[in-house]
């Protein structure tokens, strides 16, 4: 993370030395774009804060540990889609679930939907892609996640 700050600072400095005017124009664009999208981010944060309260980690753990793996995939995809969780929380959680006996294919469905399908990021995505394409992209992503889960199950011998 700190490398990124340093890298950005360095780029700004180089840009400033090369052309002051262009650099100011760049910063103006940055601020304009950022301010424009802030309401959508706030909407997302409000949704995220409420949903994470309603669906805490313990709930997820309880439901993913289902005996029926096929049902588990569907439940995992559902949670993965409606929840927003950064990787540094999600993967340790999956590690714990794995040690509790949750199958690889269920975890695969969960992590893939978590990464690709974003119900809670809808307010932001819609601003850029439009409502129709946002829904289309998320639907395709959900299908991809299901196929990925089944493939994972196949390679880990959990399918049959």
């Amino acid at each position, binding site marked *: *993370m700190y490398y*990124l*700050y340093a890298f*950005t600072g360095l*780029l*700004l400095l180089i*840009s400033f030395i090369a052309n002051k005017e*262009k650099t100011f*124009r*760049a*910063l*103006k*664009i*940055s*601020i304009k*774009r*950022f301010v*424009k*999208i802030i*309401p959508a*981010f*706030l*909407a*997302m*944060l*409000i949704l995220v*804060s*409420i949903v*994470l*309260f309603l669906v805490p980690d313990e709930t997820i753990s309880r439901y993913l540990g289902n005996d029926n793996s096929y049902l588990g995939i569907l439940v995992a995809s559902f949670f993965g889609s409606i929840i927003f969780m*950064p*990787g540094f929380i999600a*993967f*340790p959680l*999956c*590690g714990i679930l*794995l040690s509790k006996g949750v199958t*690889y294919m269920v*975890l*695969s469905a969960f*992590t*893939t939907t978590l*990464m*690709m399908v974003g119900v809670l990021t809808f307010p*932001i*995505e*819609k*601003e*850029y*892609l*439009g409502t129709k*394409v946002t829904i289309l992209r998320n639907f*395709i*992503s959900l299908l*991809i*996640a299901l*196929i990925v889960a089944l*493939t*994972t199950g196949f*390679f880990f011998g959990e399918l049959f």
Partner: protein
Amino acid sequence: MKTAPKIVRILLAAGYLLFISISFFIGFEPGVKIGNNFISFALEMVKILPIAFILIGLFEVWVKKETVERHLGKDSSYRGYIWSILLAGTTVGGLYVAFPVAYSLFRKGAGLSVIFTYLGAAAICRIPMIIFEASFLGVKFTLIRLITSLSLVIITSMVLGKYLEKKCYQMQKG
């Protein structure tokens, strides 16, 4: 879904703020928990977003449209996909950072298939995340997931991009 009128949205946000403040004041636990969720995620984003938007600004000013068109445009062949996946691998944060970047690429003339590949890849193969995943779930798991999902992302992006190009689809504002 239609967006609610501005005034409704402002009222909802104000109601939320009021609920959280009162909860903190009187110690209403659910409200405090929700407020803490909000703060922790907001902080996480405040760390990343300004950097992302500064880089986007610099990109808009310094990178020529022809360059993007040549490497990521409609006729860039397989190279466009490789570039977009590499770019996605180094994207930080998550999809919420990738959307504004995708918009910049679109304005500079990148092809829609390449852009959707970038978005998909930014979701599933950011390098820091892959390392994390492999250390908790194993290399085999990560490789299977990566290879399967990435190939599906590329295939579906090609189809989706072609389809939307035919419909003269335009990305919105930013």
